[in-house]
C-alpha cells in the first residue's frame, strides 16, 4: 500500500501555544517532588501575603507559597485525569470494536447502553454517586471512567463502521482470518488515531470534572495541593491575596483549553486523512 503523500503544514499558532502549555504542565507534574519538595509547607507566622520577595505570587492564609502549590497541583490534577481518559478509551475500544465490526444484537445492546448513559449529565451523576458513597479521589476516577466510556464507545464504533466495508477488511475475511484477528490487527490500527484524538478531548473534560469534584470537597482530601481544592480553600481570600485564586483558576482553564485545542487539531487531521484515503 502506497502512502498518500502528506503535505507538511505548520500547525497554527494556537496549537503551538497549547503544546507549550501542555509541556510545562507535564514537566511540573513529572518533577513536582523535586521542583517543590515542600509545596504544602506552612508558615503560619507569615500567614497570607501578597506577591513579594521569596514568594512571587504571595502566600495563602496558611503561609503556603502560591507558586509552589501551583506546580505541585499539576501532579495531583494530571495523573487522575489521564487515568480517566485511558480507562474510558480502553473500555470504549473493547466494547466499540466488536459492536461496530460484528453488528447485530451486540451492537444494539452496546448502543442502547450508550444512549442511556448519554442522557446522564456526567458531572452531576459523579457528584451524587461519589458524594453518597463518601467521596474520595479513587472513587471519583472510577465513576468518571464509567460515565465517559460511552463517548469512546460511540466514537470507536462509528470509526469501525466506516472501515468494515473497505477492501482490506474483505481481503482479510477471504483469507479466513478470525474476526478477533481482523478486529485487532487490521481494523484497530486504522481507527486508533481517532480514538487517540478523542482521548485528548476526554482528558480535558476529566481534568475539569475532577477539579470540580475537588472544588466541591468530593475529590482529593483537604489540604492537598490540587488546583480545584486550592481554589476552594482560598476563595475566602479574594481580597487579601487575589493571586491565590487567580493562579490555580488560570491553570485549570489554560490546561483544559490546551488539551481541547490539541484534541480538535488531531481530530481534524485524522478526519481529513481518513477521507482522502
Amino acid at each position, binding site marked *: 500500500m502506497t502512502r498518500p503523500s502528506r503535505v507538511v503544514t505548520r500547525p*497554527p499558532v*494556537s496549537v503551538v501555544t497549547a503544546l507549550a502549555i501542555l509541556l510545562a504542565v507535564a514537566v511540573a507534574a513529572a518533577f513536582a517532588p523535586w521542583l517543590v519538595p515542600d509545596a504544602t509547607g506552612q508558615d503560619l507566622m507569615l500567614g497570607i501575603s501578597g506577591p513579594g520577595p521569596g514568594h512571587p505570587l504571595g502566600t495563602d492564609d496558611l503561609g503556603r507559597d502560591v507558586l509552589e502549590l501551583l506546580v505541585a497541583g499539576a501532579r495531583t490534577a494530571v495523573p487522575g485525569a489521564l487515568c480517566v481518559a485511558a480507562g474510558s478509551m480502553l473500555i470504549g475500544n473493547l466494547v466499540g470494536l466488536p459492536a461496530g465490526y460484528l453488528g447485530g444484537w451486540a451492537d444494539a445492546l452496546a448502543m442502547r447502553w450508550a444512549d*442511556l448513559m448519554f*442522557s*446522564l*449529565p*456526567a*458531572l*452531576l451523576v459523579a*457528584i*451524587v*454517586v461519589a*458524594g*453518597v*458513597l*463518601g467521596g474520595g479521589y479513587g472513587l471519583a476516577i472510577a465513576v468518571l471512567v464509567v460515565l465517559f466510556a460511552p463517548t469512546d464507545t460511540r466514537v470507536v464504533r462509528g470509526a469501525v463502521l466506516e472501515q468494515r466495508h473497505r477492501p482490506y477488511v474483505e481481503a482479510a475475511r477471504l483469507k479466513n482470518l478470525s474476526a478477533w484477528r481482523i478486529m485487532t490487527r487490521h481494523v484497530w490500527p486504522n481507527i486508533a488515531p481517532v480514538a487517540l484524538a478523542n482521548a485528548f478531548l476526554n482528558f*480535558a473534560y476529566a481534568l*475539569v470534572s475532577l*477539579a*470540580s469534584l475537588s*472544588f*466541591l*470537597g*468530593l475529590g482529593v482530601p483537604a489540604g492537598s495541593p490540587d488546583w*480545584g481544592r486550592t*481554589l*476552594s480553600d482560598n*476563595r475566602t481570600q*479574594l*481580597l487579601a491575596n*487575589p493571586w491565590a*485564586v*487567580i493562579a*490555580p*483558576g*488560570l491553570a*485549570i*482553564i489554560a490546561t*483544559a*483549553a490546551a*488539551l*481541547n*485545542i490539541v484534541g*480538535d487539531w488531531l481530530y481534524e487531521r485524522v478526519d481529513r486523512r481518513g477521507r482522502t484515503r
Partner: protein
Amino acid sequence: MFLLRRLAGTAVVVALLSIGVFCLLYLAPGSVQQTLLGTRPATPETIAAIQARYHLNDPLPVQYLSWLGGVLRGDLGTSIRTGMPVADMLGQRLPLTLALTGYGTVLAVLVGIPLGVAGALRRGRAADRLVVTAGVVGLSAPPFAVGLLLLVVFAAGLGWFPVYGVGEGFADQVLHLTLPAVALAVGAVGMLVRFSRAALIRELDQDYVVFARARGLGAPAVLGYALRNSLVPILTAAGLIVTGMLAGTVLVEVTFALPGLGSLLVDSVTFKDVPVVQALALLLTLLIAAVNLLVDVGYSAADPRVRLGGRPS
C-alpha cells in the same frame, strides 16, 4: 407517530433512572436504617417509625413501588438534616436556580450565536480564528474557576458587582445574579459558538447558497436561508447546553454562596441527606428528559424529514 415513539423512549429512560435514584439509599455506607436515622437517637420507637415509613421489612421491589407511589403523590419524604418536608425545601430553592439558569441561557444565546455566525462569515480569517479559540477556551473553562476570576476582577478589583448574597428587590437581584450568570454562560457560549459556526459553514457551502448568490440575492436574504437551515444542528446543542447548565449551576451556586438547588445538592450530598439527594436527582432527571423531548419536538418542527424517519442532514 414519531413523537409517540420518542415519548415512550423517554418514559423508559426515566423509569430506569428512577430505579437508580431509589438505589442511592442502598449505596450510602452503613445500613439504610442508620442513613435514615441520621443524627437522631436510635431508640426502638424511631427505628420502628422509620421501618414503617420506608417499608424496610418488605422486599426491595415493594419498597421501590411504595417510594415511587409517594413521589407521584408529591410526597418526597422529610430531610434528615433539617426535618423539613423535602418538597418544601425544593420549593424554596427552585426560584433562584431557575432565575440563574434562565439568565445564563439568555446571555449564552445572545453572545454565542452571533459570535458563531460572525466566525462563519469570516471563515479562516483572523477574526474567525479568534472566535474559534475563544470558543474552545470557554468550553474548557469550569464555571467555578471563571466565577472566582470574575469575582477577583469585577467584585474585589473594580467593585462593580457585589461579592456575595442574592440582593433585595428586582434590580438589585439582577445585579447580584449577573456575575454568576456570566460564569454559567461561558461554557454554553463556547458550545453555541462551535455548533452555530460549524452549522452555518456547512450551509454556506451548499449549492442553493451559490445559486441564490448567483441570482443576485442580497447577502442578508442569503444568510436568512442558511440560518434557517442551520437551526437543526444548533438545536442539537440545546440538550447539551441544558445539562451543562444544570451541572454548572451546582458549581456556580457554591462559588457565589447562592441558596439554590445546586448548593442544596452539595450540602445534602456532604451530609448524606439521602431523601433530599434522591428528590433532587429525580427532579434533574425529569428536567433533562423533558428538555431532550422538547428538542426532538423542535427538530421535527424545524426539519420535517425527521418526522418521516429520515436523518437530519
